[in-house]
């Protein structure tokens, strides 16, 4: 069944481009339904007892076409995030992308990107993963630049060049794995690496993978493209990029490769810890100095992604479960913050926080939801972000990385600092005279803001009731 998640988007893209008169008009609705269907589908899969968690699943279509895809909890979390982000992007895009033809292209590209992301998540073959990675990446380049602002084009080009370099690193690593194991499927590679001790080519391959995925995921010190891309992309595309694209391209792949292909050797942990803590601290530090709403959020993303890396570095157990949960939480609260920035930008026409003030009375929903998102991002209980950070910190502490845990905890104060500064500069304070006529954002933006805030609160409140077994099964991955 899961291969439908790749085929249906493909089918829909083809369908809406057919030269039937009315079909173009229903493109938006179809994409919307697709996103909704994916959310429902993953939720069903997660909660049905019929489907055993964390096991590979052979597929009907897969048997027919003879390919293999795999589903475990990590996959399901990612699939859910993809559906959710797509939904929110579409809702926001409705308000922001007004031109009919542009919106049509926008929807098409989103659906293509979705097929790519689903493919990455489901792939059980490192090269297939690469192909779908490129699909999502190509769709993102076009999405960033589709309104053709010069800065957006520049950001897209920068992203393209760095991403291509990352692809080459990844391809070289794949070649090295083929040299060692003779195949590209996860199962065979992982078996080969377990039989032999790996040796130098494997370590080299791992290094190449880590660098490549770090570029794709915007992890310090490979983050150069990310602030530009997030800032200059059209508002809904920023949501999509920050919400899911970089996460799937950089983090999911990293988690998969590290856990499935290489197990948990100590030297991987060391590398990941260094990169993670650098991202956490410097991302937060850079965010503190920004004036542009979206640029601050972009640096904040780098910082939050660092926590996920730290969780991964702890290895299976609570750290990894926390990392996976943080992927979900980060999708929710960062998308929400970008939705808020879209609302502010469309209503006031500026992203410069020095020109904004006192919007809380004019935009109460935006203001309230942004508080929820900020507090969740900073890890303030009882919101969702608290629990994932708590798990990661406990994981770090138990794995003996105490200094890193302390730094990570202290960095969350910087996080709270810059998020409060958003609140202070944008939403509190005295309303300027030129902002007196600002109104609350309309339909789609409101709905997505409320939806995401509800999830952030709901996950946070429901977390204590999650059975411990489910939490443990989160971190047991296919082949890992």
């Amino acid at each position, binding site marked *: 069944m899961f291969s439908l998640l790749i085929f249906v988007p493909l089918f829909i893209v083809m369908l809406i481009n057919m030269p039937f008169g009315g079909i173009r008009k229903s493109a938006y609705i179809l994409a919307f339904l697709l996103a909704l269907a994916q959310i429902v589908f993953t939720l069903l899969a997660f909660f049905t007892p019929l489907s055993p968690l964390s096991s590979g699943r052979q597929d009907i279509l897969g048997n027919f076409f003879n390919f293999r895809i795999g589903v475990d909890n990590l996959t399901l979390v990612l699939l859910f995030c993809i559906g959710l982000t797509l939904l929110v992007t579409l809702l926001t895009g409705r308000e922001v992308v007004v031109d009919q033809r542009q919106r049509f292209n926008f929807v098409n590209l989103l659906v293509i990107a979705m097929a790519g992301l689903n493919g990455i998540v489901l792939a059980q073959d490192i*090269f297939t993963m690469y*192909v779908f990675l*490129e699909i999502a990446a*190509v769709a993102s*380049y*076009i999405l960033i*630049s589709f309104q*053709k602002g*010069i*800065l957006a*084009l*520049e950001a*897209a*080009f920068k992203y*393209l*060049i760095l991403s*291509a*370099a990352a*692809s*080459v690193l990844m*391809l*070289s690593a*794949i*070649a*090295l794995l*083929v*040299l060692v194991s*003779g*195949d*590209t499927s996860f199962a065979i590679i992982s078996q080969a690496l377990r039989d032999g001790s790996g040796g130098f080519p494997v370590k080299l391959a791992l290094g190449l993978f880590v660098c490549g995925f770090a570029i794709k995921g915007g992890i310090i010190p490979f983050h150069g493209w990310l602030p530009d891309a997030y800032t200059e992309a059209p508002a809904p595309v920023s949501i999509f990029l920050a919400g899911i694209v970089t996460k799937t391209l950089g983090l999911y792949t990293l988690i998969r490769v590290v856990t499935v292909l290489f197990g948990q050797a100590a030297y991987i942990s060391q590398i990941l810890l260094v990169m993670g803590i650098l991202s956490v601290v410097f991302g937060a530090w850079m965010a503190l100095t920004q004036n542009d709403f979206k640029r601050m959020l972009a640096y904040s993303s780098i910082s939050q992604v660092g926590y996920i890396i730290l969780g991964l570095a702890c290895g299976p157990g609570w750290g990894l479960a926390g990392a996976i949960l943080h992927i979900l939480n980060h999708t929710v609260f960062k998308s929400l913050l970008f939705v808020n920035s879209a609302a502010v930008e469309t209503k006031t026409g500026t992203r*410069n926080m020095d020109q904004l003030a006192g919007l809380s009375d004019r935009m109460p929903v935006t203001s309230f939801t942004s508080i929820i998102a900020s507090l969740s991002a900073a890890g303030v209980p009882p919101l969702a972000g608290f629990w994932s950070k708590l798990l990661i910190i406990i994981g770090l502490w138990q794995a003996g990385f105490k200094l890193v845990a302390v730094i990570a905890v202290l960095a969350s104060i910087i996080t709270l600092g810059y998020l409060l500064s958003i609140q202070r500069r944008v939403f509190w304070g005295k309303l300027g005279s030129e902002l007196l006529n600002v109104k609350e954002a309309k339909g789609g933006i409101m709905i997505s803001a409320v939806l995401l805030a509800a999830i952030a609160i709901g996950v946070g409140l429901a977390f204590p009731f999650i059975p411990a077994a489910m939490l443990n099964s989160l971190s047991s991955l296919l082949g890992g």
Partner: protein
Amino acid sequence: MNSALLPMFWPFCIFVLMILVIGFYCILVTYNLIRALIGVELLMKAATLLLILVGYITGQTALAQSLVITLIVVEVVVMVVAAGIILRIYSHTDSVDVRDLLKLKDKDKTNA
């Protein structure tokens, strides 16, 4: 795997690495967007060669070929999109030079 072929891996690899270095150097040093793209192409050449080489050594030429064919398709699409972005940038600035872009950005910042 064909163990007899293993010794040829490293000499080939040296050439692959040299081409990689040329490509990266080109990307880092040039100010011209098109030339940066050519650098990326060179990187792709190196990766292609490495894949084929590995396939040859391990005796999995069929696998390597199918990977490379897919890779070439991907490569073409990326290049087309990149060329489109360059042309768009050109239609804004009448230049394909990164320095002109940076100037524009500074101006934009001071205006803001």
